[in-house]
């Protein structure tokens, strides 16, 4: 599948020395699991905290007097609503509403008190790094902005789980407990490593994604694991990252969203501000008003079997859709999936069949998310 050399994160050698199994992902050689295996890594993240090497993610700084105007022309979310040191999940869309990428956009500032030093950071999927940067550059012409890919010098980890905030808070001068969901704070780790702490993630658990200079990658990674060892904190690979985000029904680019799927079809209304202009807005507004022909749903297997990406969905023996992601959901203990189906079949309770190993297996539509993120529960 891959050609040429795979890229390696700053921690490649650490992973290799700690019995990680490596896999190729989006042009990178990444740990898919460590010795305990993906199910154990999934559970430790839900119960304690897991540490993820996500250095393959792409970080692009956007600066200049027209940075806000420029980004607001491209991003589906209205970033004039964003405050300094806040982030939001959003999409970059083609004119037809298909998705270029689904970045998180951050409004940051060199000096927290001075709005003139304000700038933006976009975090893109690794698989869309080159394509996303080309898209950003292609539309920057009329605007007074500077784009800079800072992925090489910046390293990104995630610490996720019910004890993640508490653990990280002990290691920094920043007051992490006071940071709201999608808030960001600058500080240091151990008084020495300048770090941005962002209360975001891709697991359905509370926690932080952190940005730090690449030269400190090993020290920070090992420092967090050492500090968390008595609690049972472990490194977590891509397999568990996928099952964690899947249970919380967070989309994966290439599965739930892509050039031929829109944020409306994917149910990502919180990423959209249809009351402002942006590329793709007309198509999305039309689709929102008319209602999409196909929508993303969650389903549960009634016959026991494992649905997977690409499996055909049938309704009374007729092909009606395709599974985007499916698997054994470790926290829920069931075989679950997400799929695109015609809107008229999207009601919870609708019975469908999934073709698995050449045979139809019974399934039914269930509500999403399968796992309610900890930070969205009322108690």
């Amino acid at each position, binding site marked *: 599948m891959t050609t040429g050399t795979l890229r390696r994160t700053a921690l490649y050698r650490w992973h290799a020395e700690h019995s990680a199994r490596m896999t190729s992902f989006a042009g990178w050689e990444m740990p898919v*699991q460590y010795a305990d*295996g*993906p*199910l154990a890594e999934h559970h430790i993240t839900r119960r304690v905290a897991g540490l993820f090497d996500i250095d393959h993610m792409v970080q692009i700084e956007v600066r200049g007097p027209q940075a806000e105007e420029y980004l607001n022309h491209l991003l589906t979310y209205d970033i004039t609503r964003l405050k300094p040191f806040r982030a939001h999940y959003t999409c970059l869309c083609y004119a037809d509403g298909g998705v270029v990428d689904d970045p998180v956009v951050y409004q940051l500032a060199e000096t927290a008190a001075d709005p003139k030093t304000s700038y933006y950071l976009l975090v893109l999927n690794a698989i869309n790094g080159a394509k996303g940067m080309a898209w950003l550059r292609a539309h920057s012409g009329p605007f007074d902005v500077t784009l800079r890919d800072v992925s090489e010098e910046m390293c990104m980890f995630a610490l996720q789980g019910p004890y993640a905030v508490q653990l990280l808070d002990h290691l920094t001068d920043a007051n992490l407990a006071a940071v709201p969901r999608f808030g960001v704070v600058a500080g240091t780790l151990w008084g020495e490593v300048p770090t941005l702490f962002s209360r975001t993630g891709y697991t359905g658990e509370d926690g932080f994604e952190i940005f730090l200079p690449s030269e400190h990658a090993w020290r920070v990674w090992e420092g967090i694991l050492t500090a968390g060892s008595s609690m049972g904190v472990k490194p977590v690979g891509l*397999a568990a990252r996928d099952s964690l985000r899947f249970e919380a029904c967070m989309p994966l680019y290439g599965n739930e969203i892509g050039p031929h799927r829109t944020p409306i079809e994917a149910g990502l209304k919180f990423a959209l501000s249809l009351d402002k202009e942006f590329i793709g807005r007309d198509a999305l507004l039309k689709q929102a008003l008319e209602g999409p022909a196909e929508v993303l749903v969650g389903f549960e297997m009634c016959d*026991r079997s494992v649905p*997977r990406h690409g499996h055909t969905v049938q309704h009374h023996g007729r092909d009606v859709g395709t599974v985007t992601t499916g698997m*054994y959901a470790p926290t829920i203990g069931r*075989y679950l999936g997400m799929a695109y189906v015609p809107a008229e079949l999207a009601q919870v309770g609708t019975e469908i069949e999934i073709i698995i*190993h050449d045979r139809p297996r019974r399934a039914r539509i269930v509500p999403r998310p399968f796992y309610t993120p900890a930070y969205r529960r009322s108690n």
Partner: protein
Amino acid sequence: MKLDANARYTDSHEWVRQEGDVLVCGITDHAQEELSDVVYVELPEVGDSLKKGDRFGVIESVKAASDLYMPVSGEIIAVNQELLNAPELVNKDPYGKGWMIKIRPSDPSEWDALLSPEEYEKSVTGA
């Protein structure tokens, strides 16, 4: 890699052990290690008659689905129902509680064509 000295093996990583005139079959420790966490095992119906090399089931790990192949020809006389609720037994105890099917062989000579533990080990390690 753990081996059962009393079992014989296939190139496709099944093990077979004689218990009276019945053969018990599962997948090897090496196979479960490679697959990683097993989340589902689909097994045949008791009474099915299958030929050596036929697909008798599917094993699903977190990562992927893999076919399971009959090590010898014969009739399925039992399947391990425990695996439905506890597929992780394949990881924890591949030669014991993780067994999959019992076969009444139709051609006893096929047993002799299976790999010895040493031969299987060599086929895996390439030594």
